[in-house]
């Protein structure tokens, strides 16, 4: 018989049905769970595919670009984009071609105007011979994925720029700088953020206060003016390589703060978790606790934040180069290409100069999708 005022061994408080014990979830490793949740985000998966493709382009840029960046034709400046057409009636099977250019001179301004002539046909093919290059600086080759069948023909699928260079080739080659600067910059910020955030979150106390104040201070300064003023200090006579590293440094020195905050927040909450206490009581050393127990359980969050930081860096480089303060011609990046689009008059004659901006937009959008999906699935045990 039950008597008054006793407390039986109580089962845990009732949970919502959706939070209930999930046997399948309990058996899977955390990474599989992250992957399972991530896969449900259709946009994130699509974004991941786009990002992967973009980096494939980065790796094989010389091969994928129809011409090298230095190939130009001063007689064909600001030539409009050509549409690839397929002729089915050709006797040897399919024949791809573009319409060639007819050049006229504007009777008033004496500017050259290039228009597409439907009667002219420039044949195209896969793996044509073209500008020779050294793949990754070591393998010499002269084949390109796609281009004019005869090396002397000029083909501008996305139009040409002020110097008569092929915009498509420039965008492909420019992806190298634009996309790598984000990765390298994030890698540097990651190290800084992990170091300072980790120290701040794990030790707390005075180091924490100091680092937090520094972060707050850095975050209070408007980024672009600061970038501008720091880049003003970069000597004008530095070569493209030096500038590249200077810009990366500027971006990452200011970019680590957000990441440090994430790391610190995770450290602070993990420090109080039971499994960390348990590990400490088991006599685990501090280093072991951090790397064996804490870092693995926060890595998904950190990766999500990293993914969100890359597009910010890409936008930063683009903005700086666009203003002429980042990389400079002859180096090629999407921001440098967009610099040519600064003038409205130029844009009126050659609106295709905005296409590098589309490349920036698509990549950044895809990366944001991936980051968003990762963030949602970063904590597989949370609904």
């Amino acid at each position, binding site marked *: *018989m*039950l*008597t*008054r*005022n*006793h*407390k*039986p*061994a*109580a*089962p*845990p*408080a*009732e*949970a919502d*049905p*959706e939070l*209930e*014990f*999930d*046997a399948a979830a309990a058996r899977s490793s955390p990474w599989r769970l992250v992957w399972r949740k991530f896969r*449900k985000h259709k946009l994130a998966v699509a974004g991941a595919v786009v990002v992967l493709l973009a980096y494939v382009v980065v790796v094989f840029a010389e091969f994928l670009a129809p011409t090298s960046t230095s190939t130009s034709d001063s007689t064909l400046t600001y030539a409009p984009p050509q549409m690839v057409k397929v002729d089915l009636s050709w006797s040897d099977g399919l024949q791809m071609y573009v319409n060639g250019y007819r050049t006229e001179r504007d009777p008033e301004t004496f500017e050259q105007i290039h228009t597409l002539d439907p009667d002219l046909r420039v044949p195209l093919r896969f793996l044509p011979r073209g500008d020779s290059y050294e793949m990754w600086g070591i393998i010499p080759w002269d084949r390109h994925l796609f281009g004019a069948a005869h090396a002397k023909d000029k083909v501008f699928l996305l139009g040409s720029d002020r110097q008569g260079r092929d915009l498509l080739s420039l965008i492909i080659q420019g992806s190298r700088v634009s996309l790598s600067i984000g990765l390298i910059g994030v890698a540097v910020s990651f190290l800084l953020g992990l170091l300072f955030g980790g120290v701040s979150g794990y030790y707390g106390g005075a180091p924490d206060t100091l680092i937090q104040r520094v972060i707050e201070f850095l975050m209070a300064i408007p980024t672009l003016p600061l970038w501008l003023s720091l880049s003003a200090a970069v000597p004008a006579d530095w070569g493209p390589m030096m500038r590249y590293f200077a810009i990366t440094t500027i971006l990452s020195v200011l970019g680590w703060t957000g990441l440090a905050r994430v790391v610190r927040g995770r450290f602070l909450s993990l420090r109080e978790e039971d499994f960390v206490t348990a590990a400490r009581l088991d006599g685990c050393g501090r280093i072991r606790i951090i790397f064996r127990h804490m870092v693995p359980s926060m890595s998904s969050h950190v990766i999500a934040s990293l993914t969100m930081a890359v597009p910010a860096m890409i936008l930063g480089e683009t903005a700086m180069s666009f203003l002429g303060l980042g990389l400079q011609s002859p180096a090629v990046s999407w921001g440098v290409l967009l610099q040519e689009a600064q003038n409205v008059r130029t844009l009126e004659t050659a609106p295709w100069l905005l296409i590098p901006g589309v490349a920036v937009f698509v990549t950044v959008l895809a990366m944001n999708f991936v980051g968003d999906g990762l963030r949602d699935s970063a904590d597989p045990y949370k609904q």
Partner: protein
Amino acid sequence: MPTTEASWERQQTPPRQNILEIEGLHTQFELDDGVVQAVSGVDLAIARGEVLAVVGESGCGKSVMARSVLRLVDRPGRITGGQIRVRTDDGAADMVSAAPETVREVRGKRVAMVFQEPMSSMSPMHTIGNQIGEAIRLHERVTKAEARARAVELLGRVGIPAPERRVDEYPFQMSGGMLQRVMIAMALSCGPQLLIADEPTTALDVTTQAQILDLLRGLQEETGMAVMLITHDLGVAAQMADRVAVMYLGTVVEEGRVEDVFRAPRHPYTTALLRSVPKLGSGSRERLRPVRGMVPHSYRRPSGCPFHPRCDEFMAGRCDVTVPEPLRDQGRPGAVSCLLYEEHEEHEEHEETTP
């Protein structure tokens, strides 16, 4: 004695006036990985002034059932069938099909609710006086000053010291026990005929628990309101309730007077549940026996009697095939859903159908 319509009458003695009748209630959660039947055909009734305890293990659907009464189940949960009749001035309102205005009219005024975690059940951005006053002003035409005065008076009634000062404080300035008193005051503000208390003491420490339960019992006797007490704590149920309903996997397996059910449980699940609880003062030194096995995974509801995989009295070929119907009038008020007690009828049917 109040007159009762025939349809409101279910038990013979004593004459009851039900203020809440739940019939065939189904509530389910449609999740990405499947459908969870949280409440699966519950029949329950509460009479005026009665205290009904609903007990069961975690995840048996008792909380969802309680929330369904006020139509408070959030997405992806959905009431998919049954009726919930709440007595109103002009008859009864079916909470399952009623218009939103009617539902709002019932919430707070006829049926009030107290939740498990008082701290998170109150907005930290508003004073407690504001929130109690709001509860009053939603259902009665009073000025803000009157509402505030009523709030102070209510806080005094639930035993909060210096109510005229406390009324202007924020929830985070009070302890859990104090806040649960505030929640009770808020629930009482419009004089409801039924108070649903969903695990009101689970988040509190033991001494506070006892105080809150005493307060609830006292207020219940004072106001004559009915109470539906959701708890996993059989001791609390025994101490507080007139009647008890035992739930397992979304169905009521046994229901009856507290003394009947706890002294002579009939459903094997009730028996097992009672065995898993330590008996204080009985002098027995027998080992506690937890209920065998584990609660099945929510997506895979067992066939037949939901309890059969864990049941000591399992009859192969019957319990895993036939869903038991509630049996009433078995010599005492209440019902039990178990094939053990259907043996007689069941045998006859069996003989008829077997060639």
